C-alpha cells in the first residue's frame, strides 16, 4: 500500500563540503543514506530519517543538516500534522502506534512557572565554595521517636531502625532495563552511580550475573509484573528493591520489550527465550489489592532478611495520593512516583500522551497527604518523570520529594536526542539497542564519565541555589514551600502546589 505520510525530516547535504566518505551511510541504522557509486555521491532518503542527528554530529565535513520537513498540510488548529499523520498510519496498518521516550505534548510544565527564593540582608546567603553544603540524603522509613539511653557516658540507641540507603546527592538513575537499553549503556549507569555516590535502577530486566558482585550495592533491583530475571541472588545483591506497579509513560499497562531486542544475553538475564517479545502483564497477577501488595512487600523483606528498603513505584494518576498512603501503610519504605512526562522504551502513543498527571502537582499532593496523615517520615518520596535540570531537582525537593530519578536526562547525557525510536532496536547512538554493531558505539568509560559529570554539575548548581537561600543542608529544604513562588498559575494550581504566588 502506498503510504500517504510524507517525511518528517528533510536532509540537506552540502555537496561542496561532502567528501563521499560514506560515514553517514555507516552511522544510520535506518538506511537513510546510500552511496551511488556511478555518480560518486551520497543520496539521502528523507522518508527513512528519524531526526536523531547522528549523521550530523559525526559528519567529518559538517556537510549535513537535518531539519523538520518544510512541507505541510493545510493548517488546521484541530487537525494538526501529527494527528493527521497518526491517523493515516493507522489507516495503513490497522495497528497501535508505538513510540518511545516521554510525553512531548505541550502540557503546562510547572517547573517553568515556579521561581526560587534567595537571601538578602537578614539571612546571609552561604557561599558553597567556602562553606560546607550538604546534599547527603537517606532514603527509607524513619522512626517517629528515637529511644536513646545513657549509661556511663555511653549512648545506646534502642530504637530498631529501618534500613535506609544513602545518596551523596538527591539524584538517582531511573529504572532502565538491560534489554530496553544496551549493555554498555546499562553498565555506564552502574559505573556512574558508583562514582557519584548514588544508585542506578535495574528496571525490570534483571541484573546480569557478572555485574552483581561489582555493582549490586549501587543497584535498586526492580521487581515488575513480568518477574524477569528475579532470583534470590538478584534481590540480595542489591541495595534496595523496587516493586514496579506503574510507569509514568504508560500508567495502567505493562512493559513492552519487542523480540528484536531480546538478544541471547538479554534472554539469559531475563530468563526468557531469545527473540520472544517480553510483554509484562499490566497488573502484577499476585497484586489485585492493597493487601496483596502488602504481602509482596513482606515477602521481599523476608527474602532479603529485612536488610533492604522496599520501594514501590507507581504512576501519578488521579487518585494516587490516597493509594500511596495505603502503600506506606502496607509497609513500603520508599514511594517512587512517576509523572506524566516520564519516559519509556516502548509504549502506545495514545497512552503516553494522555494518561497520568504532571509530577509537580503529584509531589506536592503526595507530600501533603502523607503529612496530613502524620506518616510522612515513614517513607521517602522519589519523584520521576520530567526532571530536566538542577532547578527542577531543587524545586521537586522544596515541593516535598526526598530525591529524584532521572531517566531521559541520563540518556541525553550519553547522547540520546529523544528521537522516540527506542522500540525499533535501531538506536544510532548505541543506547537503546541490542544490535552489537550499534551498541558498540557507546564507550562505557566515556558514557559513565558523561553521566557522572552531569551529576557533579547538577550537584554544584543545587549547592549554589541552596546557599543562595541561606540553607546549607538539603534536608532543610525538603517540603519547604516557603522558598517557592508561582508565576502565571491559576489559584487552584497554587493551592495544589501549596505555594504562594510571586509577590504574595
Amino acid at each position: 500500500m502506498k503510504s500517504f505520510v510524507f517525511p518528517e525530516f528533510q536532509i540537506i547535504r552540502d555537496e561542496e563540503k561532502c567528501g563521499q566518505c560514506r560515514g553517514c551511510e555507516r552511522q544510520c541504522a535506518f538506511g537513510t543514506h546510500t552511496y551511488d557509486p556511478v555518480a560518486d555521491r551520497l543520496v539521502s532518503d528523507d522518508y527513512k530519517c528519524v531526526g536523531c542527528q547522528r549523521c550530523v554530529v559525526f559528519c567529518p565535513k559538517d556537510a549535513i543538516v537535518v531539519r523538520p520537513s518544510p512541507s505541510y498540510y493545510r493548517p488546521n488548529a484541530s487537525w494538526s500534522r501529527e494527528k493527521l499523520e497518526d491517523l493515516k498510519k493507522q489507516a495503513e496498518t490497522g495497528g497501535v502506534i508505538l513510540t518511545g521516550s516521554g510525553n512531548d505534548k505541550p502540557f503546562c510544565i510547572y517547573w517553568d512557572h515556579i521561581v526560587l527564593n534567595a537571601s538578602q540582608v537578614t539571612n546571609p546567603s552561604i557561599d558553597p565554595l567556602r562553606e560546607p553544603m550538604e546534599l547527603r540524603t537517606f532514603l527509607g522509613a524513619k522512626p517517629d521517636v528515637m529511644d536513646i539511653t545513657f549509661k556511663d557516658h555511653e549512648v545506646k540507641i534502642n530504637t530498631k531502625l529501618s534500613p535506609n540507603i544513602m545518596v551523596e546527592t538527591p539524584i538517582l538513575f531511573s529504572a532502565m532495563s538491560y534489554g530496553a537499553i544496551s549493555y554498555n549503556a546499562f553498565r555506564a549507569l552502574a559505573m556512574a552511580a558508583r562514582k557519584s555516590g548514588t544508585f542506578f535502577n535495574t528496571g525490570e530486566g534483571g541484573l546480569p550475573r557478572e555485574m552483581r558482585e561489582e555493582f549490586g550495592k549501587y543497584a535498586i533491583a526492580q521487581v515488575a509484573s513480568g518477574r524477569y530475571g528475579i532470583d534470590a541472588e538478584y534481590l540480595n545483591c542489591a541495595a534496595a528493591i523496587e516493586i514496579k506497579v506503574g510507569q509514568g509513560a504508560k500508567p495502567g499497562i505493562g512493559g513492552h520489550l519487542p523480540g528484536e531486542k531480546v538478544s541471547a544475553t538479554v534472554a539469559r538475564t531475563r530468563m526468557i527465550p531469545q527473540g520472544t517479545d517480553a510483554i509484562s502483564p499490566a497488573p502484577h497477577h499476585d497484586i489485585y489489592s492493597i493487601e496483596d501488595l502488602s504481602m509482596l512487600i513482606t515477602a521481599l523483606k523476608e527474602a532479603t532478611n529485612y536488610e533492604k528498603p522496599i520501594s514501590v513505584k507507581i504512576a501519578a494518576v488521579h487518585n494516587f495520593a490516597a493509594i500511596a498512603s495505603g502503600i506506606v501503610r502496607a509497609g513500603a519504605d520508599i514511594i517512587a512516583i512517576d509523572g506524566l512526562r516520564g519516559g519509556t522504551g516502548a509504549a502506545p502513543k495514545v497512552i503516553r500522551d494522555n494518561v497520568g498527571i504532571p509530577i509537580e502537582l503529584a509531589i506536592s499532593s503526595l507530600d501533603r497527604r502523607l503529612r496530613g496523615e502524620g506518616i510522612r517520615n515513614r517513607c521517602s518520596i522519589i519523584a520521576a518523570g520530567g526532571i530536566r535540570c538542577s532547578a527542577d531537582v531543587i524545586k521537586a525537593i522544596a515541593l516535598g520529594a526526598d530525591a529524584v530519578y532521572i531517566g531521559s536526562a541520563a540518556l541525553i547525557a550519553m547522547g540520546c536526542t529523544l528521537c522516540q525510536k527506542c522500540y525499533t532496536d535501531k538506536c544510532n547512538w548505541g543506547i537503546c539497542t541490542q544490535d552489537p554493531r550499534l551498541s558498540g558505539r557507546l564507550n562505557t568509560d566515556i558514557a559513565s564519565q558523561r553521566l557522572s559529570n552531569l551529576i557533579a554539575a547538577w550537584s554544584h548548581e543545587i549547592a549554589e541555589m541552596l546557599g543562595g537561600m541561606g540553607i546549607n543542608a538539603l534536608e532543610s529544604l525538603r517540603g519547604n514551600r516557603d522558598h517557592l513562588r508561582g508565576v502565571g498559575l491559576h489559584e487552584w494550581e497554587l493551592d495544589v502546589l501549596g505555594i504562594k504566588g510571586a509577590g504574595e
Partner: protein
Amino acid sequence: MPRIRRELYTKDICACSIFGAMNRDGERFNGAGVMKAIANMHVRGNGLGGGFAAYGIYPEYEDYYAIHLMFTGKNQEDKLSAKRELDAFLCQHFDVVYDEEIPHEDETTVSDPPLVWRYFALPNKKGDDALLTDEDYIVSMVMRVNTRIENAYIFSSGKNMGCFKGVGYPEEIGEYFMLDRLYRAYTWTVHGRFPTNTQAWWGGAHPFSLLDTTIVHNGEISSYGTNRWYLEMYGYACTLQTDTEVIAYAADLLMRKQKLPIEIVAKILAPPIWNAIDRMNETEKKLLTTLRMVYGPLLMNGPFAIILGQTGKMIGLTDRIRLRPLTAATRGEMFYLSSEEASIRLISPQLDRVWTPNGGEPVVSELNSMRKVLQ
C-alpha cells in the same frame, strides 16, 4: 480529595539582641539588671518588640500552671468579648484558683497594648482528655485556644514562671510590667527585636514559650517550612506568625515528649557537618548519622542564636556555622548569655570566665539545687 487552600502565612524575619542571666544557687533577683543590660543593646532592636521570661516568680502558686493571655482587638469591647469567650472555655477545661490583670503602668506609655491577664489553674480533664498527661493536656489546650479563639493568645503556660512581652523596646516593656519592682526570678531571659517584614503585634514579640520552655531568638530560620510540617505532624500548630515558635515546639517535642537530653537535642537542631561526622569514631558516627537521618526535618537552618529557658536550666545555642553572636560568661554563681559581651560587663564588670561558644555546641547552665527556689 477536597482542595486544601494554600497557606498564606507570613514568616517573621528579625534581627535582635538576646540576654540571659541565671543564678545557679537559685537566689532570686529582680529584673532591673537585665533591663539595664538589654537597654545597652538598644540599637540591635527597633522598638517593635521586647520581652522577658522569668523563672521562679510565682512561688505562692508554684503548683499551678500560670497561664498568661493577651486579648487583642480594635477596641476595649473586642478585647473583653475575647476574654468572655476565653473565660467560658477556661471554666470548662480548668480549675482556676486565681486570676487577675497583669499589673502594668499607664497604657499611654506603650503603643496599642492588648488586655493582658494571668490565670493560675489546674487542668480539669474530661472524657478522652483524661488519658492525657497534665502537660500534654496543657499543650493541647494552648493549641486549641491559639487556633480557635479569635483575639485570644496564650503566650505563657508553665509553672512558677512567666513571660512578659509586647511592642516597644524591651526596657520599655520591662517598665510597663514593672519587672524591676514586682518580680524576683532566678533566671531571666530577655529579647529586643528588630523585625523587618511583619506588622508588629504584641503576640509576635519574644520569648515564645510552651509549658515552661521559653525561647528568645536572634536570627532567621530558613528551614521554617520544613520544621513546621514536621512539627505539625505531631500536633503543634504554628500560629504566631514567626519562625521562633518552631524552636520552642521542637524543644518541647524532643525534650519533654521524647525525653532526649539537651546534648542530643543540640545535635538535632544544629548537627555537625557530614565531613566531621565521617571522621568520628564508630559509636559517635553511628549516633550522629542516625540523629541526622531521623531528625533531619528538625535541623534549624539559617543564622540563629537562642537562649532556651526551662525550669532550673538556661541553655545557649547557635547555628552550626555560627552566623549570629553569642557570648557566655560566669561570675560566682551567676551565669550570663548575651549577644554582646559589653552588656554583661555593664552589670557585672568583673567576670570569672568569658567565652564564645562554638557553633552548634550548647552551653548549659543548671541550678545547683532546687532548694532555694522552692523555699
